Each structure stands twice: as C-alpha cells, then as structure tokens.
C-alpha cells in the first residue's frame, strides 16, 4: 500500500508541474515552496539560415497564485503572473499584461528572504527596452557561457514579483535545461539546443497580500 502511494506520488511529480495546492486552506498562510519542473518556454524548433535558433515565439505563462500553467490564449487576462520565452521573463503588468505585475531581481538567498525589504523598487515591464526581470547575460537571473554555449541561472538570485492581482511571491530559477540538468560543456550542440528552454524553478506565494514569506 505504502509503495503504491509512493508510486502515484512519483507519477504525479514526473507527469506534471502542477502539484495542486488547496487554495482555500492557503488564504492566510503562504504556501510552502513549490518546485516546478520541465516548464517548456518556447523550445527551439529550428535554425535560421544564419544558424540562429528560433522557437514558436510565444511566451509560456504560469500562475503562481493558482500554481498552474496558463494557456497562451489567456495572455491578455490577469490569469497569469509570469511569462517565459527563452531567457526572457515577463510579469503581468506594464506593457506586458493588464495586471498589477511588477518585480525586481533580489541578490541573496531565497530562504533568507523572509520579508521583501521596504525600500525595494518594483519595476514594471517596458518591452522591449526594459523589463522588471532584467534581461541579458550576467545582468538579471542568468549568465551565458559563450565558450561552451551554456546558460546557467546565477546562484543567489531571487525574482521578487508582484502578481497580476497585486499579491507577492518569490521565485528562484534552478535550471534552464530539460530534467533540471545542464548538459556537460563537452555535450554536442544538438543536445545543448534541444534540451534548453526547460525551466526548473521554485516559488513561494503569499496569498494574504503582505510582503512576508
């Protein structure tokens, strides 16, 4: 019997990134940290004649409030909080969406961020010139190793976000590759290309509107 439960649990965690939490119970206490695996973010479907990889060009949306994937057809709603496309991360606010989304990249440890500092500045997206989650290698959440053609999330970076509905959450990007494992530097370009743009991230959502986690 016990084995069966473990098996089912394993299947659920492997099969989906949406380990559903009970929303009603979580109204006044922050949900514990949830890890989302293999979240595909505009994976590469081809190369241009110049060798530049491209995907379908669409953002993949996630709702931290409901802990689930949101269809891209809902892009103009407040159903989603964070959008991922390649290394670009958008929040549902500014010119990215109709919500109250805003945020910034905090330098420090996820577990030590118990309260969002009072003097923090929440930025809104102003695509394409600036984003709340700063774009670019070694500027926001990731670093690009041009020699080995690999992207690594910078350790000690927390994405502090205001959701579409004005609540707060913290997000840590753990990995950018399929299965949560960065290919070895010696891996082939084919592997590096096909396995990238799969996010592993963890987040904590505070449903009560405070900045405390």
């Amino acid at each position, binding site marked *: 019997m016990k084995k069966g439960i473990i098996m089912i649990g394993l299947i659920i965690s492997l099969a989906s990134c949406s380990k559903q939490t009970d929303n009603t119970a979580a109204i006044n206490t922050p949900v514990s940290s949830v890890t989302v695996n293999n979240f595909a973010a505009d994976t590469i479907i081809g*190369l241009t004649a*110049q*060798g*530049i*990889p491209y995907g379908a060009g669409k953002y993949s949306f996630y709702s931290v409030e409901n802990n689930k994937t949101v269809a891209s057809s809902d892009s103009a709603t407040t159903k989603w909080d964070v959008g991922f496309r390649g290394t670009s991360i958008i929040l549902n606010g500014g010119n990215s969406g109709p919500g109250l989304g805003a945020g910034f990249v905090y*330098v420090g*440890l*996820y*577990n030590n961020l118990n309260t969002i500092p009072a003097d923090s500045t929440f930025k809104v997206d102003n695509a394409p*010139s600036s984003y709340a989650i700063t774009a*670019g290698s*070694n500027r926001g959440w*990731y*670093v690009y*190793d*041009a*020699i*080995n*053609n*690999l992207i*690594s*999330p*910078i*350790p*000690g*970076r927390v994405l502090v976000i205001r959701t579409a509905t004005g609540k707060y959450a913290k997000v*840590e990007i*753990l*990995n950018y590759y399929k299965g*949560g494992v*960065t290919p*070895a*530097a*010696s891996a*082939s*370009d*084919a592997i590096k*290309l096909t396995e990238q743009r799969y996010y*592993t991230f*963890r987040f904590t959502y505070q449903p009560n509107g405070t900045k405390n986690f």
Partner: protein
Amino acid sequence: MLKWCILGSILFFSVINSYAQKSDTLSGFGNEVVVTATKTERRLSNVAVPVSIISQKKIQQAGSLRLNDILQEQTGIYLTSGFGTGVQMQGLSPDYTLILIDGEPLVGRTAGVLDLNRITVGNIKQIEIVKGPSSSLYGSEAMAGVINIITDKPNKTTLKASARYGSYNTSDLNLSGSFRKNKLAYQGFVNGYATDGFSIRPNSVERSIAPIKRFTMQHNLNYYFSPKTNASFNFRTNDEKIINIISVTNNGLVTTSNGVEKNKDYNTTFQLAHRFNSHLKNTSRIYGTQYESTQNLLTSNGVPYTDYFKQQFGRIENQTDYTINDVIELNAGVGYTIETANSSRYDKTESTKKNQIGYAFLQSEWRPLPQLTLIAGARFDNNELYAAAFSPKLAMQYKVSKSFHLKASIGRGFKAPDFRQLYLNFTNAAAGGYSVFGTVEAQKIITQLNSIGQIASLENDFYKLGELKPEFSTGINIGGSFKPNNELDLTFNFFRNNIENLIDSRLVAYRTGGSQIFSYLNLKNAFTQGIETDIHYKVFNSFNVNAGYQFLLTGDKDEIKRIEDGKVYTRDANGFSRLMQRNEYVGLPNRSKHMANLKLQYEKNSAFANIRLIYRSKWVVTDTDGNGLFNSNDAFAKGFVQINTAVGKTFAKTLSLQIGVNNLLDYSDVSNLPNMPGRNFYTTIAYQFTQKNKK
C-alpha cells in the same frame, strides 16, 4: 687555441667574469654556467635566484623536437593549449613569461601566447629557466620568469646530420656545421619539420593539430679582431605553413573553412664586445625581429576571410660590466626599443601602431663575505604609450656550508599592455556579432556609435575605461639547495607572486540589437604561491633518478574578498542556492594544485634508456554553477599521468640511433587536452662527421 675556443663558445653576453671564475672554495656543485639570471656569466652554484638548466644531451635523449616537448617534462611548468602552446610558470599565464633566443626576445604572440612550437630544439645548446620576476634586467613580460634558449656557437669544425620519422607522418631533419679559420668562425643550422597532424575529436573535420610544415635556419658568424674584441652576427628565420580546415559550429550550424596559415619569423643580431682590461668590458647589441602571420581562408559558403598580423621589434642596447674589485661588480645598461604592429584586426591593416621605450638598468653584485652574495638591481622603462615602469630587485645567496646553500630574492615584474589591448578593433560576425575594442579605440568608437543611435546601453565599466597601466607583480622566492654527497642533490623553492592591475576584458556596452561590446580594463589583483622541489639521486654511476614536484595555490583577491563578505553563492544538490564557503574556492582556472615528474635514466657504454613520467592533478575548466568564479562545484578536467620513454645507442662515436614512445599509456582528453596526441612512436638516426681540429 683553447682560449679562442672558450671565447667562441660564450658569445652572447660574452662577459668573461674574471671574478666569478676565481677560486670558489664553497662552490661544491653546479658548475654549469648560466647567463640569464644576471645578464652576466655565472656558475649555477653562484646564482641567487631560482634557475634551472636543460642540457643539449637531456633534450636529445628525451627525443624532443619543439621547445614545448622538453619544457613539458620540467618541474613547475605546464603547457597551455589554445592559440598555440604556451608556458605556464609559477601559476602565471603564458603572457607573463619572456621567451628569449640567445638573450633576445621573440615577438608575435596571439592572445598573449607565444607558440613554443615555433622553436626547434635541434640547435639548442642549453635552455636556461629563471623563475620569479626578472624585469629588473629584462623589462616587460618577465613577470613569471624568463626562458632563454642558448643556441650552438661555433667552436670547432663540425658537421652533424640527423633524421627522425614517427607517428602521424612526422619527420624532422637537422643539419648543422661549423668551422673556424683564423679570426673567423661560422655556425650554420637548418631544420625541416613536417607532420600530418592528428585528430582526437571523433566528430569533427577539424584536426587537433593541423598538417604543418616548418623550416628553420640559423647562421652565426664571428670575427675576432683581437683577444679583447669580437664581433658577431646572427641571423635566424622560421617559416611555418599550416593547412587549415576550420569548422565553426554556431548553434548547430557548421561552417567549414579551408585555407592556409603562414607564419614567418626573422631575427637578426649584431654584437660588438670589447674588453678594455680585466675590470671593464663593454658590449653593444643591435637586434631586429619581425613576426608576420597571414591566414587566408575560404568558407564553405564562399566567403573569403583574411587575417593578417605583423609585429616588428628593434632594439639597441649597450651593457657595461665593471669589476671594481674582488668584492663588488657593477653591470649597467641603456637601451632603446621601437616596436610596431599591423593587423587586420585593428582599425586598418595599413595603419601602423607604434611604441617606443627608452630604458636603463643597473645591477650591483656585492660579496661582503666569501659565503655571502648580495645583488641589488633596478630597471626603468619609459614608454611612449603607457605609464613608465620601475622594476627593482634584491637577491641574496648564503652558503651555509659546502653542501647547503640558501637563496632569497624579492623583485618586481611588469607586463606592458600589448597592441591588442590598445588597438584591437574586432567584430565577430559569425558568433552573434560581438565586438572587442582595445582601450584606445573603445571610447572613440562607442561614443561615435552612440551619437548615431547604435548603442542601446552603456555599462558601468564603460565609464572606467581609460589609459591602461602595465600589469605588475611582486615576487618573493626563498629556497636553497642541499647536496650532502655525490649521489644526492636536492633543491627547493617557495614562491609567492602578488599580481596587481591584471588586464581583463569586460562588457562595456550593448549595441542596439543586443550585440555585446567588450574592452580591456586593469581589473584584477591575483596571487600565485607554492613550493617547488627537485631531487636528483645517483643510484649507480650508470643509473640516475630525478623527481620533481610543485604545489600551487592561486586566487583572485577580489573574489576571495567577495566570498569572505558572504556575497558568493553556489547550489546544493537540489539546485537551491546556498552560500559558498572559502574552502570551496579553487582560484584561477586551468591550474593544477599538484604537478610532478619522475625520470629514470640509465646510461652505459654509449647506450641509454630512459622512462619519464609526468603527472598533473585535476584542474578546473568551466564555471558550471554560474557564480562567476571557480570553485569545487564546477567542472574539472581529470588528473592524468603521461609516460614517455626512449632508448638509444651511439656507434663508433659517430652514428647514433634512437627509438622512443611518447604517451605510452595512450591517455587523451578530447575536451581539455586537444593538443595531446595518443600513443606515438619515432625513430631517429644521427651522424656526426669526423672532426679534425687543426692545432
């Protein structure tokens, strides 16, 4: 006649130091003569800085062909791959070791690396390796140390030929000869080398080592006006032709380029030396060298590509050696250097970049007690293009007893910013269109681009761009030698190099469209420190064992401070960020903590056999945790052992045969040791024509 021969054999820096050759009751060992450490002739046993010598015999018995072959078997030296084969000494990158041939510098570095493959060992009489800063005598680049290649000089009538053939269709031919007639002496040397190269990469058309043909010749002419005055003329040239098949993979799209790379070296020296009396000697030298590199490629999509680089270096120097008395000797020199460079990677190939340096150095050696030698020296380099450099040095040697000597030295070394760091104007269209601009160009170009709206953003580092300062190091070496008996000989040295103002590239701006622009800044402060030791043990007269070991620690001081301030993170097994600890810090990449070698040598009745082991412990190669510095959570290359072996015999003192196997264990590492071939074999035949020296 004998006197003539001795004189002829010590041509370069031909300073007959009457003082050093006086009875030296404490010398005990180390009777080989070195010139590099003090710019004057000294017995090895009397030198106050760490010096090692590799003899012609050792080079031959190791079956070496190019300079890197023999250097890789020396303690504390690691050869780097990338832009040719460079030398890493005391943990410093190839940029910081000065390479000399007969006391004059070679030029033509690519990304700071002087490819040691350019130098054949066929006419090397001995290699002198001085460790620690030597800028007090040699100026720029002598930060980690100096490798001086002393070539054969005419001393009698000889004619030698040798031929070697081995794996990868590698052939090497040498012919050298010399003669003396009355006041004239000549030494000539030619070397031809060819290899098909090899490939250890399984899925690439590009070879690890491309097919190469090299041709080197050297001529040395001496004229002895009188026993006190001689003139010499030396000319060397090296031609390289490399067949390039270069495969660039950009996001999985493979572009192959075919073509030829040609590299040419010329070196010419004229020297006039005059000894006024037993106290005073003056030497004047004029040196000119040129390195020219042309790469012509045609890519598979039909686009031609040309890369051109030319560097010229001219120098005039006068050195005076004055022996005041048995206790004090002075060496003083003044010189002027002019250096130019042209490159297709600068703004225009036709526009010649130029730098001029005026310099003076003074060194005094004082022996207050028979067992104590003190050396103080300094050099001042006044540069046209960057700030002046002052390089002092102090050294001492104390002979505790006949069998135990101690040495200590402290000195400053520097490396001038090179033309690339000042003038590079390079945009890589293939790989995302990033650009690298030298500091002189960067501000100008970026400001101009900005004014026409082609710059998206300027980074903080853009505002720090300014005049580049030379990179400086302060090196401390403390060591000694111990020779209790005829069988055992032990040397050891502790070193510490504090390096300031290290130049590194930084992102300074983004173009509209996202392409990155890099330039150079004086950024880092680093250190290297360690222990080096060599033991020689004569088991029998015919059987010798040599063992060497280096322990090395390196680090970037700013990185260490960030770690200690709790600002550096890494990831745990779950991928969650955590603080990185100081003990996880590895330091500078591509450096092994432990390196060792062991050589067993048997020699009897003109036959020899040797087996040489080289060990290198793991080294960090990639920052996989993305925290911007190297730590124990990153990717390492595996440690390895390489074994080389050779046997040989000489018949009737004229005919020599040798066979050898390199990399006996067939070790290879495709990613991290691309220049290391698998197991390979060779055989050499050499003939020495009979010499008839007229009395």
